[in-house]
């Protein structure tokens, strides 16, 4: 792999940047792989990378129907945090957070992980109780978190309307200072480049149209470019998990909904952290290019159209203007939608399936981006050994039968 650095950049500038190598190959699929990963988004690419790098499984293919990182990886609002309520999810997201902290160096690609602080605003007494509960749990789990009162919030977040005149006055907030944002495309590209360098075949523009099974076990995938054999198959197709499950012959406790986001025109930096509010239902951060990056809740109906309904955009900007009245004259540049796989307990499914050797990693709802490294890592470990990684175990499909759900709804009713 051609190593990236400031010096390298200077050297290449002398040759007019004509000698940069491809970031990844365009390989012809081999007949059979040890592991085939379906879905070349952030999670799938991370899985492939860790399989090759940490678990010694190098005969790996990632099969992607479109372009790498073209699903929710390309469409999310890039928030990274690990301040989840329940032990199971907190540990999983914290595992991801630790990986974020060294990711740029690990994959030699600047993913611009920027721990600028994530604030969750409290507007009601119950918000305050829930926040104390979550922050307290985070602290005892070794995850940073603070509960601020209204005065502290006003001091830390300039231009936020902390007056009593708002519809739902701000009573406080939690902050996770290690939380922040990362550059979404860079995560996919960085993992892709590193996985490719480690020998993984990244097969783009190839759609999986079926799973070939023998004696109840998967032996490969049927694709638009023919059959590709595999000893194990990992499906990481956020937004299309239900469809993949149908191809494999079972159902999931998942419904796919549109999740919309929007950006403003680029403006000079004015929001230097990530601010989220459940009660007024919106969240905001500002990219390094100057765009305000804004999102809110999901649309109520199932949808794979990568677009949602306009009233959701209206409600979102009403919330933003309610929180930051000074932004009223700023303008919205673009809006778009992703497809989120929502699960009944707002927690992912990382699991074996009714089909032997077929593993699913899905159901991340609105929060998948932040988990990318951790999700990839535990899924890789599981695919390498055939046994679920301890951090993944609580997220098995069985919980929807036994009732052992991990209900994160209370902690995150707003999409993020």
């Amino acid at each position, binding site marked *: 792999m051609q190593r990236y*650095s400031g010096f*390298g950049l200077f050297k290449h*500038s002398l040759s*007019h*940047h004509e000698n940069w190598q*491809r*970031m990844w190959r*365009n390989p012809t699929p081999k007949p059979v792989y040890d592991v085939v990963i379906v879905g070349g988004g952030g999670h799938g690419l991370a899985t492939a990378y860790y399989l090759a790098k940490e678990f010694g499984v190098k005969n790996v293919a990632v099969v992607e129907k479109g*372009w790498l990182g073209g699903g929710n990886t390309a469409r999310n609002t890039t928030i990274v945090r690990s301040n989840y309520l329940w032990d199971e999810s907190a540990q999983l997201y914290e595992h991801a957070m630790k990986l974020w*902290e060294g990711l740029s*160096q690990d994959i030699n690609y*600047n993913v611009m*992980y920027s721990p600028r602080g994530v604030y969750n605003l409290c507007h*009601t007494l119950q918000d*305050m*109780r829930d926040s*104390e*509960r979550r*922050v*307290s*749990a985070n*602290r*005892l*789990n070794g995850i940073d978190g603070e509960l601020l009162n209204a005065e502290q919030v006003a001091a830390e977040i300039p231009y936020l309307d902390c007056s009593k005149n708002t519809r*739902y006055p701000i009573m406080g907030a939690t902050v996770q200072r290690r939380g922040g944002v990362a550059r979404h*495309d860079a995560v996919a*590209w960085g993992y892709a480049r590193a996985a490719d360098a480690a020998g993984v075949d990244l097969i783009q523009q190839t759609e999986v149209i079926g799973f070939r099974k023998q004696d109840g076990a998967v032996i490969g995938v049927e694709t638009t470019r023919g059959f590709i054999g595999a000893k194990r198959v990992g499906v990481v197709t956020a937004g299309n998990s239900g469809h993949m499950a149908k191809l494999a012959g079972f159902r999931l406790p998942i419904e796919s909904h549109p999740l919309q986001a929007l950006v*403003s*025109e*680029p*403006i*000079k*930096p*004015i929001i*230097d952290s990530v601010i989220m509010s459940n009660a007024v239902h919106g969240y905001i951060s500002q*990219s*390094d290019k*100057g765009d305000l990056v804004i999102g809110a809740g999901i649309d109520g109906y199932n949808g794979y*159209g990568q*677009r949602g*309904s306009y009233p959701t*955009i*209206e409600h979102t*900007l*009403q919330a*933003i*203007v*309610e929180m930051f*009245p000074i932004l*009223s*004259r*700023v*303008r*919205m*540049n*673009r809006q778009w939608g992703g497809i989120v796989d929502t699960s009944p307990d707002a927690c992912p499914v990382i699991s074996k399936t009714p089909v032997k050797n077929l593993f699913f990693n899905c159901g991340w709802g609105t929060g998948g981006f932040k988990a990318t490294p951790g999700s990839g890592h535990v899924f890789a470990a599981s695919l390498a050994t055939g046994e679920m990684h301890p951090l993944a175990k609580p997220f098995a499909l069985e919980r929807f*039968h*036994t*009732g052992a759900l991990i*209900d994160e709804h209370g902690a995150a009713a707003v999409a993020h």
Partner: protein
Amino acid sequence: MSQVNRLSRGGRIDRSQPLTFTFNGETYQGYAGDTLAAALLANGVDVIGRSFKYSRPRGIVAAGAEEPNAVLQIGSREETQIPNVRATQQALYSGLVAASTNGWPSVNNDLMGILGKVGGKMMPPGFYYKTFMYPSSLWMTYEKYIRKAAGLGRAPLENDPDIYDHINQHCDVLVIGAGPAGLAAALAAGRSGARVILADEQEEFGGSLLDTRETLDGKPAAEWVAKVVAELKTLPEVTLLPRATVNGYHDHNFLTIHERRTDHLGETAPLGAFSAPQARHRVHRVRAGRVVLAAGAHERPLVYANNDVPGNMLAGAVSTYVRRYGVAPGKKLVLATNNDYAYRTALDWLDAGLQVVAVADARSNPRGSWVEEVRSRGVRVLTGSSVIDVRGGKRVEAARVAAIDPVAMKVTSPGEWLDCDLVASSGGYSPVVHLASHLGGRPEWREDILAFVPGEGNGLQKRIDAGAVNGVFKLGDVIANGFEAGVKAAAETGFKATAGDLPRTEKRVEEAAIALFQVPHEKPTARAPKQFVDLQNDVTAAGIELATREGFESVEHVKRYTALGFGTDQGKLGNINGLAIAARSMGISIPQMGTTMFRPNYTPVTFGAVAGRHCGHLFEPKRYTAMQAWHVANGAEFEDVGQWKRPWYFPKKGEDLHAAVARECLAVRNSVGILDASTLGKIDIQGPDAREFLNRVYTNAWTKLDVGKARYGLMCKEDGMVFDDGVTACLADNHFLMTTTTGGAARVLQWLELYHQTEWPELKVYFTSVTDHWATMTLSGPNSRKLLAEVTDIDLDKDGFPFMTWKEGNVAGVPARVFRISFTGELSYEVNVQADYALGVWEKLIEAGKKYDLTPYGTETMHVLRAEKGFIIVGQDTDASVTPDDLNMGWCVGRTKPFSWIGWRGMNREDCLREDRKQLVGLKPIDPLKVLPEGAQLVFDPKQSIPMTMVGHVTSSYMSATMGHSFAMAVVKGGLKRMGERVFAPLADGSVIEAEIVSSVFYDPKGERQNV
């Protein structure tokens, strides 16, 4: 400075109305009818800003929505600042204050520009992914400096003085664009009687007809425009919306139009009729039967070396400035083109009495009518040639024209430098397909016109395309196409229309363009001077080639890696050239490459306009009870519960929350208090199967509840988790009154309806919300009976009117239903009266209660009192993972009810039967003065190192004024079998609160006080 570039004649400006404005602190003059861009050009302002990445000087390029450079800050006051206004779309008004958005210390002497020159070579696409990584701790420092360069304009730092609103429109035909096609379509459809909306983003209707040199019926085209507009104004069902951009085409033919109502008048909206504030912008939310898309086409610039130096403009824009605004943005023009239409610019320039140095046409032998006309006027036309490079710093000084082979991408002659101060280029026309693609419809490539046109797509838009957007460019054809579209749209929505009379157009020969998306240079692209594709984001042809070389092969990858099309112009100018360059460098065709997805908005929309009036005091409804005025007059502090405003506590002078609540609590325990409980959900249930229905939706049994009695019930979802609770009274055999939690009222009713309508329609029962009809006031405390007795004719005898029953009678002269139920553990009466009469009853109770020191109390006191009794609050002591057994409320579970009621099966799943589930218990802090924080996590072993094993959390916690010590409710793993054991709450400040696990009923465990 005078208007050096203003022509003495011509244009649609009003020279009798001079307007003064400032740009970067300098004062200038323009005329009414100018755009800000036109006025700046009139004044010879060349450098309008600096580019984003390389800080290169930039000037005005275009005359419309595609302008990438002239993106300015507007506003003279802090609160009226508007960032990123396109000068080409801002009408000039007197006193306009504009400034460049970057460049330091000024756009003309920019220090960042030096950095851009030196460092530019090290800033290829994606350079930031390749560096700033080491050491890892430094990224936040790097980022700080990167952010300093971020953004174009700035947000105001004070609140917006303006308002914005919405209007909902429904029409048969929405016509987008009021150029020749749109006007014709609107006229045809409008004459049929259909409801028509015609929206156009410009200040006035007419589009290209406002500045074309072509004639209609032998007269200037603008006269035809005036005639059509005049007729449209007479049609009652036609709505005309100038300054209104259709920005989003959403599902089921729903579109949004962003109308700028006052931006042409000033930076803030003046008061309107009735001295009322006018909305600065209005968003029209339109449901259209049919859409006629007549959005026109954008001209593409040619991509040659140094094509960003101020003085490089679109050919069509030059014509617009000359003919519409009477502005000549230069003296000596070199025109570069690959098509016939651009020759109009040479003719317009000549007509203005200015010099055309040369026309460079990439085609080898153009013979169209306009070409010949230019030749006949003595202009040097260089065929098979193009401008390949430009010289100049802050203004074009010369252009190098050379012979080229566009197929082989070669320069085939040494060429010559031509002195000039303006290079106008035209690389063909791109139909404005954006709206047609908002639902995912893919544009289709048409090789004959070298452009993408809207695809038939996926048929999701009921849309008819007309005019240039449809690939029709000849003026006569455009108008005919517009008439056809209007007739068709009207017919498809049930109206009979006929086409209008086609105006006579000039006859001429027009020839096809040839493909030229990047002009070759002697050097390979990577080594040639920068050839800009996307000016706002400093995306060059070399950058696009580099992206494909590095493996970014999908058009979306190229876009994301290079930032092509990410600017505020969203690639209107550069996208097609960019993707053509990418396609060529990968050896694939343009249609194989495809376009990126188009998403709303077509042009940026003000946040405030999208929000409309739904902000500030109208952000969301505030719901009030009938006693609200009294609460306010008596100093209540309010708590938000759902949309309700509920009195939280009633502080007396000098009291804080704790003091007020302690006083209120003691008043209830010792005498009597009054609570406004009107917000509780109330559902009237009638029908012979009402009782059966209750059996199915509540966890407990209802078969034997007698008329006159009331019972507490729990509701679970099918998963067995508690979802709501409340008291339901039997009013008559077939008649019940259900109460729900305040926040749960709507969802409980909806849930009852869901089961009734979808699962058990055979059950004869009707549900009606009576939450708002009844106002409820709770008298609670040992003196409540005495007090109530003074104002009621109901016999309050404790045996005649026992606990958990209800009676009818008059209270304070008003018919009432009184329920003897208690949420405080004290003797209590809930008085329900028709809400219209509640305030009077409340006031009479307050008056009569004086001698008992009747104390109004709020939700906080209610919470303390109920917690002392161990009564739960759903949503506070429960989340969606708590069963009735977890709450130690097994007594409320009808285990033998014949029908498998909602929740029963769910709560008998494997995980719900675990013995070590978290269970609701009471906690008594060992230090009676320490109040556990609500939400605090609990551990058994406070010495354990992190991560600690958490065993539950505090759900409710208070200081009890009655008992003189703190207490709490909590869920604790296996807590019900751990009575007397200790738990610990390690707090954020490092301290630990120790507490004993006790019964959750702290006060009057036998219930003697409520049952007297």
